[in-house]
């Protein structure tokens, strides 16, 4: 149903999400993401690739918000990219794009976190 792949990069974590990020899967996502932050131990950025994400609910949004707030004190950013369809709509309606950087493409996202 829901799958996430976390790749460790020099600038932080490249996270690819697949399936539905809803009340069922959000707690797992939150736990793993926070664990990744704790494991990094220093300022890291997160790129969340939504290309394969089919749906995101308010619980999913909240877990992303938790991650963003967790990174903020150390200057880490959460960049969203690859959005389309329902997911793009939800992000737009929720106004997430007004407090999280949203990149049109994956390349843009990597530029934002300074990887390229």
């Amino acid at each position, binding site marked *: 149903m829901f799958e996430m792949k976390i790749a460790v990069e020099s600038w932080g974590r490249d996270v690819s999400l697949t399936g539905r990020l809803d*009340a069922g899967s959000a707690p797992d996502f939150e736990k793993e993401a926070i664990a990744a932050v704790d494991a990094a131990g220093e300022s890291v950025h997160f790129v969340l690739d939504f290309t394969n994400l089919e749906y995101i609910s*308010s*619980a999913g*949004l909240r877990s992303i*918000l938790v991650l963003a707030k967790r990174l903020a004190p150390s200057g880490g950013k959460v960049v969203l990219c690859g959005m389309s369809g329902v997911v793009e709509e939800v992000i737009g*309606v*929720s*106004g*997430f794009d007004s*407090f999280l950087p949203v990149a049109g493409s994956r390349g843009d996202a990597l530029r934002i976190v300074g990887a390229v």
Partner: protein
Amino acid sequence: MKEHLFPLFPDGRRGVSIAAKLSLMIIAGVGAIFLAIVFYGYSTSRAVLEEEFSARMENLGNAAESKFRQIPRVAEAVTRDLVSVLTFFNPPPGKIPEMMKVLLESHPEVSGLSIGFSKQAGDPLLRNFCPIVFRRGGAILYQDLAQELDWTVQDWYQLPLQMGKPLWTEPFFGDDGSGAMMVNYSVPVYDSSWRYLASVGASLELNWLADIISAMEVGGRGYVFLVTSNGAFVSHPRRELLMRETLFTVAEMENRPDLIPLGHSMIGGETGVHSLYDPLRGRLLVFFRPVGDMGWSLGIVFPEEEVLDDIILLRRVQTFLGLGGTFALLLMVFFISGRISGPIRRLKDATQRLSSGDLNAPLPPISGRDEVALLTVSFASMRENLLLYVERLKNETAARERIASELDIARSIQMSLVPRTFPPFPKDGRIDLFARLEPAREVGGDFYDFFRTDEDHLMLVVGDVSGKGIPAALFMAVTRSFVKAIAAASGGCPSPAELMAAVNDQIVEGNEACMFVTLSFVLVDLRDGSFRYAGGGHPFPRLFGSEGAASLPPVKGPLVGAMGGMFFEEGSGKLKEGEGLFLFTDGVTEAFDADEALLSEDVMDRWLSEMRSLGSEALVSEMRRRISGFAGEAEQSDDITLLCFRYRGSETRTPQAD
């Protein structure tokens, strides 16, 4: 013995224990074999014993027979001598008595001699002459019988004359007063011209019979009897029968019909064994055989039980051994089957307790490595699994109950926060308002509210808190309080966008849990139907009227509570009389059907357009009905909130009565 009683089976019948079944079957089998052996042994040994009896009796009879012949032969010899003397020497009548005395003297076995001359004898001197000699008191006496009676009518004279040959007469009691039983041997004598001269007889006392018979060692309770050629008893322990009765008369007198065939066999000169029933002595075996030349028959009688003494004893011993053996076998079978079925029974008791719910009932100790031990092991592991399963079920149930009770609490908070009295403003004829909140089983956080900020302004609020349970419910309560408090503080006509920004900032302050809420505000001016609205991450309200239904133009605004200092855009519009606003949460547009297809905003808009002429309550109910129809079997995944406001126009109408 109570634990040995079998419980009832489901069909209401009582069972039979394995021990009892095994014992019954073994005893039945062994008993049948035992009976067969006893019966076979009895019948074969009986036949052997009967044969042996027959042979013994035959020996006895042969010994008697040879003795039996001796004495009659003496009588016959003496008689023949007398006849020879009479016919060869033709002695004068005066000499005859002396001759007879001499003859009798030299033959002590013979008790008397007699000559009965024919009354037509050639010598006239002989025509009335019947000389007899006999012993009395050790002396030999002479008598002429002709002086006393007519000898020619007596058997010993008449029978040889009639038969024309020597013969033995039937026995009779002698007339000498001794009461001795006698028998005569009589010979016919003819003269030279073949005329009948005389009948010459020798009489024998039968006391030698008694000697012979008593000399026969029959042993036990056996006895010997002797019958003549017509069945008359000449020897029998019952003296009253002698000479008077025959086998046939006794058969009639004593009602013993089985004596008749015996009588016929005996007088017919046969040899054999008959079985008789004597009412006084029980079953008897009779061996019989002819003896001597007189046509007599000897019978030897034994009580059957004496003959079969050995076999009866054998049968008793066999029966006793058999019964004892069977009993011992029964005990052994009980013991052995008890050893076998004991563990099964103990297992049965344990499983009975187990099946009645006592999962901690101890199982019997495992002994040996047989099927029962295996069964016990299987039961033990089954019980372990059951215990584990029950434990897990208990934990799961407890967890589920805890969650359920938490959800219940959250739900009751949620439902107590939303106004549920309709119509809400019955005195205000401009307002036709109805709302409904349908909580999902687990996820929740929807709420709605409406209140008049002053006489002519109506505030509509719909929100959806992220998260679930009690935290979400409390967050919802806080949000609602902020909305009401800030709206009240900002006077009668607050700006929805500013109100939302203020609420946002208030919530962000101290929002450790990162919870947020989507909000939709609409402030309607009831005087002319104009309205202003703002949105915080929430689907925009729909405006519906005679031309259909459409979303209000989007205005910018992020989720409320996520980040402070956010800016919210404000939009505005105007309701004509009869037009309305429809506020909802994403539980409507994101309702799933069984195939996980979303309802979508397009479908909702179409439905709304179709229902545009309905009153608010009817519209909400119909919308709910259609959503349920769409979802079908699929469980409601999120709260569903529907709020409908229809503007009935400015105060031209009469207010409804309270």
